């Protein structure tokens, strides 16, 4: 496999900010220079060489193996290249992503892809809470790009989402798409409580009836909308489960809200 490869030796003593480990920043550097990069931890710095076995060649592809969840902000603000994360990827992976591709062969912690603007993140396993949302204080969550989770997402996925695409093959926790401003969420599994809570605009496609429908959404009847067909058809490349959804005919049960926030968002529920 080409590219640079970092393999974690042992669990660091405390959480470490891994945002310096970007393919675009490391590209072209010598392995020794990379080993000397200091990553900020909880009140102390750790050199890459202490933490990781470093091998390969620094190209636009970086793979980090044996992750144990103690590295946060991996791939944050990345603009180019490919970052492959194997194991447990920690919190804030791909925060504010601006264009690169992040593949997580494992699971991700909380705030996956929060505030991302462009690019693509794909997680083979589960993601924690606040996937595709924004950090505290931000007025918007993710505002572009594609965030694909093959497993489940936790609570508050797509909170305050502004644009972009969140695709989830598994289940979602409470408050999916809460305070959503716009954008698109497609959930193949089941949403727990309060999906669409206070959403203003945006589209949430639910392939299964959610555990509970908020009383502040009004039924809009069964609708077969061209825009939704177009949308689902565009997901064909994301795997067979998405193509199946696109192929099903007859439209969706459509709910509009959240009227508690004067919202005009749409929840589209398979029937």
């Amino acid at each position, binding site marked *: 496999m080409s590219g640079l490869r970092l393999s974690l030796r042992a669990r660091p003593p405390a959480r470490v900010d891994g945002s310096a480990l970007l393919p675009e920043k490391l590209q072209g550097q010598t392995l020794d220079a990379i080993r000397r990069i200091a990553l900020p931890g909880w009140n102390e710095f750790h050199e890459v060489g202490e933490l990781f076995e470093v091998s390969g060649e620094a190209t636009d592809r970086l793979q980090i193996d044996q992750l144990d969840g103690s590295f946060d902000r991996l791939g944050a603000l990345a603009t180019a290249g490919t970052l492959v994360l194997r194991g447990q990827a920690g919190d804030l992976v791909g925060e504010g992503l601006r264009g690169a591709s992040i593949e997580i062969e494992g699971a991700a912690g909380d705030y996956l892809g929060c505030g991302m603007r462009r690019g693509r993140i794909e997680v083979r396993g589960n993601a924690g809470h606040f996937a595709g949302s924004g950090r505290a204080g931000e007025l918007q969550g993710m505002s572009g790009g594609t965030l694909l989770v093959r497993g489940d997402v936790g609570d508050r996925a797509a909170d305050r989402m502004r644009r972009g*695409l969140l695709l989830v093959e598994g289940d979602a926790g409470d408050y999916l798409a809460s305070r959503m401003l716009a*954008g*698109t969420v497609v959930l193949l599994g089941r949403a727990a409580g309060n999906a669409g809570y206070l959403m203003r605009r945006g*589209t949430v496609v639910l392939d299964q009836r959610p555990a509970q429908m908020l009383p502040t959404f009004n039924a809009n009847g069964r609708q077969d*909308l061209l*825009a939704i067909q*177009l*949308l689902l058809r*565009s997901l064909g490349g994301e795997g067979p489960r998405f193509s199946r959804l696109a192929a099903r005919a007859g439209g969706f049960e459509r709910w509009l809200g959240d009227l508690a926030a004067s919202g005009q968002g749409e929840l589209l529920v398979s029937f």
Partner: protein
Amino acid sequence: MAESLTVSGVPVENTFAEAFGMRATRIVITADSLRWARAAAVAATGFATSVIACGCEAGIEQELDTSQTPDGRPGVSILIFGMSAKDLQKQVERRVGQCILTCPTTAAFGGIARDAAKEWLAMGGALRYFGDGYQISKLVGGKRYWRLPVMDGEFLCEERTATMKAIGGGNFLILARDRASAVAATERAVEAMTPLWNVILPFPGGVVRSGSKVGSRYRALIASTNDAYCPTLVGLVKTALPAGVNAVLEIVIDGLDVPSIALAMREGIRAACEGGEDAGVFGITAGNYGGKLGPHHFRLHEVLA
């Protein structure tokens, strides 16, 4: 260069069609059935024969089957030509707004490839306000669409459509024995040109009878009837009509590029000349203004080579 050229025995004058640089956009109209896509397309390209008085020149380019449209429904692609992106913006807004938005089941998509795009025109982006706040914007596959609530559901309209450099005014004239032979020849030509991409024939049925010359004895008019080709003026003016020619019809072609117009002219001329002089077609020529006004010259002999 050969001094004389005939097609099916019909002499083709060694002259050229003089054409102009324009801007064009392609819009793909889809609908639940071809019937409604066509209805919208006909309306949207109506009253668009000449840029001077109509604001644009437009026509149906092709009918599209379900594999050829962005949404998998039957459709029609239309081309709209204008003198500038600004002019086109006005026309696109009006024509999509009045003729496609209004037509049952339709949707409108931009039809120019991104890499050919010169300027962008607001399409859904301009019409969205019709939604009165209930419009929805949706980004699918990198393109932004607007969804406007209408009485049969939603009108889906791509936010923008691109313009590209284009050419207007490719043409040829059919000199015929009589009106019936001229009409028959143009019908053959139009039929042969209909399957071609990247071109439209903006005049009614693809044909124009009122060829014009620059200038007029009336000061207010910048163009007037092309008296040299009018059979009823033979004997009164310096005519361009060979003996025996009693009717002339012209086919005007707007296209997205030079090869497409040249191809259309060749196919059209060949079809028109089918049957030769026996079919009453006595000659083929082309309209120009001496070559000083338009940058594109389609020499008939080269086009047919």
